[in-house]
Structures are given as structure tokens and as C-alpha cells.
């Protein structure tokens, strides 16, 4: 796959505070690349640097088909977003398409089609201020993809959307990616990202934590964990084979297992005297990794160390 955008060693600080420290990643044609991280991790700042709205202190941002920012080929949905209030939906869509030098008649047809697709049929002559927040978000999303961008940058596209609209957005992004659009997506809604992203870049406090293909990451970092409901002594459980860490909360114990564990064999070897009311075994989800990072529990580092 062709690389559309490369970010290398990007660093940025506000006053004395280092917001981003030396992160690197790239976005390829036809993939959905997700930037994940808790609030204040530096996601939006990274994106603003890419968009040329801010300038990095160090590092470089390269668009592979052009020397400068190919503004007309980028679709951008910022985190802080809105639309002019006292104008009609179609007018603002055409204006934004016109700014991208996209032919107006084509833009108009596409706008009508997308409005229909997003359940906004007949709203093209409605003033923006009459739209609900969700409708406004849809119009903003349409504006960002109307001019058939080669690179689509979406900063928290799902925030404030109901599940139905989230699904609509998700489907549209997937279909855009399968048609060759490179999508860079920032979010902290793990479940959505887990479902759709091809690759992910997780950052915390401006630094890279995980970077790679979604499947690899899951395999590499998401070890099995076993949750047991029942009154057992912590020591008994900690001494079980392949248990890296134990978290106990009342009668619920979570055992984090080593990465090479074979669940079936491990289960067979459980001692008979354990009290088990309920037992689940599953992989650590992206969500848990995320929470883990955000709350500095370092579970991941242990897992990573064990793996390394």
C-alpha cells in the first residue's frame, strides 16, 4: 500500500510543557489508522500539526504526493467544530467544497446523495442553526468528505453521536477506506476503533505506547486473562503457573496470564480446591489496555517486558 502521510519524530511543546515528544507514524492509502489516547495525550495537537494549523518544534511531516500540504486533497473534521449559524445547509456545503476547488455541480449532487444517506433528506434548504447537534455533526462529516479527499483526518468523529449515527459514520468510513481513501482517525472510543481500525497508534502524555497493526497488537499485547468469582486466597492464585499478576477485589480475582499460555492446558491444570462460582477467560481488550495506560497501572509494561 502507498504511504500517504509520514510523521517523523514530531515534537511540540507549549511554554515549558512538552505535549508531544518524538512520535513517528504513517498513514497508508486505503487503511484506517487510529490514534488513540486518553484526554490530553496529544492527539489533537498531533493532528493540528499535520494540518499546518500549528507548526512542530521538531520533526517532519511529509505528504508523499506533494511538497506542501495538499489542502484540496485532505478532508478534515476537527475536534472543535461547528458551522456558520445563519446559512443554509447546502450553501455551507458548497462553499466548503468550493474552497477545495471541487466542481460545484458535482458537489451539489454528492451533497444531496449524502444528505439522503445520512437521513437528512430535504434539509438542504434548512438554516444550520435549526439543526440538532447530531444533524450538525453529520453535515460537518459530509463537508469533510464531499470533495473526495485522498486523505481524511477525523478528530474524535464519534463524540456526541448516538449509536445509530455512529454506525452510519463507521460504515461510511469503511467504504471510503475500501475505495482507497487513507483515513487517520483519533478517538478514545475503543470499541469502535477496535472494530474498524487497520492499524493503531496509542499515545500517552505525548509519547508512543503502542504502534502497529490491530491484529498484531491484539495478539502481542492482549494476553489472556482469567476472571474467577469465588473466595480464594490471593497467594494460591498467584502461585499458579503462568500468572503474571493478580488483582483481587472481594471475591473477584483477575489473573493476568503470560502471553505464551495455552488456555486449554492452563485450565486443565487448575487445582481442584479452588472455589469457582464463575470463571471467564478472554483476551485483554483494547479498552483495558487503554484504561491501564491512562491510569498508569503499567500492566502493559509488564506484559510487554515478559514478551520482550
Amino acid at each position, binding site marked *: 500500500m502507498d504511504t500517504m502521510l509520514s510523521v517523523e519524530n514530531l515534537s511540540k511543546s507549549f511554554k515549558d510543557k512538552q505535549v508531544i515528544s518524538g512520535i513517528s507514524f504513517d498513514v497508508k492509502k486505503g487503511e484506517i489508522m487510529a490514534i488513540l489516547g486518553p484526554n490530553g495525550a496529544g492527539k489533537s495537537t498531533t493532528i493540528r500539526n499535520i494540518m499546518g494549523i500549528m507548526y512542530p518544534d521538531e520533526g517532519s511531516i511529509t505528504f508523499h504526493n506533494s511538497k506542501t500540504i495538499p489542502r484540496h486533497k*485532505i478532508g478534515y473534521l*476537527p475536534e*472543535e*467544530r461547528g*458551522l456558520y449559524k445563519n446559512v443554509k445547509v447546502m450553501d455551507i456545503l458548497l462553499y*466548503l467544497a*468550493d474552497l477545495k476547488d471541487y466542481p460545484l455541480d458535482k458537489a451539489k449532487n454528492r451533497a444531496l446523495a449524502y444528505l439522503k444517506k445520512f437521513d437528512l433528506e430535504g434539509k438542504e434548504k434548512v438554516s444550520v442553526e435549526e439543526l440538532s447537534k447530531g444533524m450538525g455533526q453529520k453535515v460537518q462529516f459530509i463537508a469533510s468528505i464531499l470533495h473526495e479527499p485522498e486523505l481524511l483526518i477525523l478528530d474524535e468523529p464519534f463524540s456526541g453521536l448516538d449509536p445509530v449515527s455512529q454506525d452510519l459514520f463507521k460504515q461510511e468510513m469503511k467504504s471510503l477506506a475500501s475505495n482507497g481513501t487513507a483515513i487517520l482517525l483519533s478517538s478514545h472510543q475503543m470499541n469502535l476503533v477496535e472494530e474498524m481500525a487497520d492499524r493503531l497508534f496509542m499515545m500517552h502524555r505525548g509519547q508512543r505506547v503502542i504502534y502497529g497493526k490491530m491484529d498484531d497488537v491484539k495478539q502481542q499485547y492482549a494476553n489472556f486473562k482469567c476472571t474467577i468469582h469465588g473466595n480464594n486466597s490471593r497467594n494460591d492464585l498467584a502461585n499458579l503457573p503462568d500468572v503474571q499478576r493478580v488483582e483481587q477485589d472481594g471475591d473477584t480475582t483477575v489473573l493476568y496470564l503470560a502471553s505464551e499460555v495455552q488456555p486449554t492446558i492452563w485450565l486443565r491444570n487448575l487445582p481442584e480446591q479452588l472455589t469457582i462460582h464463575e470463571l471467564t477467560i478472554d483476551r485483554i481488550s483494547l479498552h483495558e489496555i487503554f484504561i491501564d495506560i491512562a491510569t498508569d497501572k503499567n500492566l502493559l509494561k509488564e506484559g510487554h517486558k515478559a514478551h520482550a
Partner: protein
Amino acid sequence: MHNTLKVAKWEIKRNLKNKSFIIGLFLTPALFLFFALLPSLFGDSDDKPVVTQVYINDQLDIYGDLQATVDEHALNWDVHTTDISETEAANALDGQEDTAYIFVDHHALDDSMVPVYTSEEIDSFFTHDIQLLEEPLRAMQMKVAGLSDEQLALVNQGVTFDERIVDESTATEANNKSGESGLDPMERVVPAAFAGIILLSIVFTGMMVFQSASQEKKDKIAEIILSSLTPGELMQGKIIGYFILGIIQVVVFLVFIIPLAIWKTDIPIMEYLLVPELLLLVGLAILGYLLFASIFVALGATMADISTSGNFQGMVLMLPFLPFVFIGPVLNDPSGLFAQIGTYIPFTSSGVLMMRLAMLEDWPWIEIAIAYAILIISTWLFMKLAGKIFKVGILMYGKNATPKEIWKWIRA
């Protein structure tokens, strides 16, 4: 430039589709017309000529000649003789309207002075009309004086009418000033007024530039727009767009005003308006606009809402009205020190220079050139600064910038 024009076009289109802009567009000239026509609507009843009662205390036996002069010029006077003394005249005039007492006695011959007492309300042409009585009085003077050199000189001195308006409280002395130059002052005023209308209109739309820039922040659309163009293009687009809106306002205004002015006055407006000097004045207006527009667009970018503006912003917003401070001194002495100071301060330069050029017959070309240079340089400078402030300010959400922060952006 390509993107700049797109932004300009958008701003124009957006406003022309906006009801409140359209209403404002026609309301201003409509209000102007209303107030211009108001006096004449009320004035109709007063149009009937009022007869002025003129009492003459004649001690020189000249009443017949005076009466003849009044008839000859068809003055709207009702002339009577009276024996009332000068001291009693004031009391007699108390509470009267359109009444005058003229005392023709030996003073008229010896000192060429004729005391005239008028009521507080008197026909505005009375002062002019009374001069016509000079003729018979001079004839009398000459008749009495004989031919000696001394007396001829006295005759040449002419007769001065000492007119006094009798007020309820005090009797003030009015001086009859004569001596207007040959040049019609309107010849200068018309182009300057035209340029003044342009400046005022586009300064008001300049205020809209401010609105528009802060709206950009309030609606949080700035980042979406800036993904397609540079902050500089956005800023210039706004300035140009609102400039054209200002011109549209001027055109609408003139469409109302010029026909009215031609109908109501005798001033040959088109003839006076279409002179080369107009270009210079319009140039002043445009430079003035660009200066204020760039200040306003930058200011708008530093705040999300005018209602939360700090003192600093409020003061900057008042800058376009600074020329009004100079109106008094400039009208008093168009070439004076204050007028010159006003000419050289960038914020007042356009307005003050326009006022001066409207009043001065000989234009101070060197001062005009210096003022133009100051305006051009400061406009350029402020546009640069505005660009810097706009770039950072437009993306700052949620709070207004402090002067300290703005200073930091400028130095960055």
C-alpha cells in the same frame, strides 16, 4: 488571491441573503431621507410670508424717501412712523414678533449710525433687506454735507446699521458681516462629503468585519475553513468582502440621496462631484477603511463575543470615532495646529484630512502627501500585525486574548 476572492464572495453572498443586512441597507438611507424631509413637512405651514412691522422714528423728515425705497424693492414690510424713544423701544418690543424699530436721527448724519431694534423673532431676510435703506440715507447725508473734502470722506464711509436684537433678558448686538468670496464652498464640500459617506459606510461595515471574525470563533468553524486555506487568505477575503458590502451600502445610499439633493437644492452636485480631487478623497476613504478593517479583523479574532470584551478591546473599537474629537478644532481653524496633528495621526488622518480639504480653498499638498505616506505605511503595518494576531487568535477557543498574549503573538 484565488481563495481570498472565494472568501470575499462568500461573505458578500452570505450577508446579501441575510434579512437584517438587507433591512439595514435600506434603513440607513430611509432614515436619512426621513430626517432630511422632516423640517419641510412641518415647515409648509410657515411658508406664508410674514409681514414685518417696521416702526421708524423719523427726525430727519426722510420717511417719504424710506417708504418709497421699501415700495421700490417690494419689501414685505409694513412701515409706520412712531415717536417712541430709543429707551422705550426695548419695552415696546417685549413679547412682539416680527417687529423692528429704526431710529433715524442726527446720528445717521453725523456718525452714519442708525440704531435698529428688532424683536427676538424676525424674518431672516430682515438684516439683508434693511441694507437697502442705506441708499436714501446716503443721499440725505450728501445733501446736508455739502462738498467739503472732509464731508465727502464721511459720505464715502457709508452708513452702518447698528442692529440690536432685543431679547427678553439682554439686548445683544448683532454684527452684520459681509464679504463672501467668489468660490462656492459647495464645490469643495460635495466631493468631501461623498468621500465622507464612503468612509463612514465602510467603517460601519468594518465593524461587521469584526463581528464576522469573532463569529468564526464562536461558531467553531475556523479550523474547518483553515484546512482549505491559510489564515492570511481568510483574513484578506473578509476585508475585501466587507469592503464591497460597504460600497454596496454607499451606492444604495447615493441612489436615495443624490436625486433628493438635486431636487431640494440648487447645488450642481454631479458637476462638483466628478472632479479629479474626488479620486484623492476616495483614496483617503479606502486607506482609512483598510486600516480600520485590519485592526477590527484582528480584534475580532481575539475574542469570541463582543459582550465579554475587555477594556482594551473596547478602546480599540472606539478608534474610528477618534476624528470626531477633531471636528471642533478643525472647523475653527482648518490649518491650525490641531488640524495638522489630526492629519498626521493614522487613526484620524482620513477623517481630519477630509474635513480640512472640504474647507480649504488652497490644498496643502505637502501635508496631503505626508498624510498619505503615513496612512499607507501604517495600513501596511497594521495589516501585517493583524495577520499575526488573526493567525493565532482565530484558533484560540473559549477565552479572550489578553493584551499581553496579543503582544506575544505580534513578537512571535
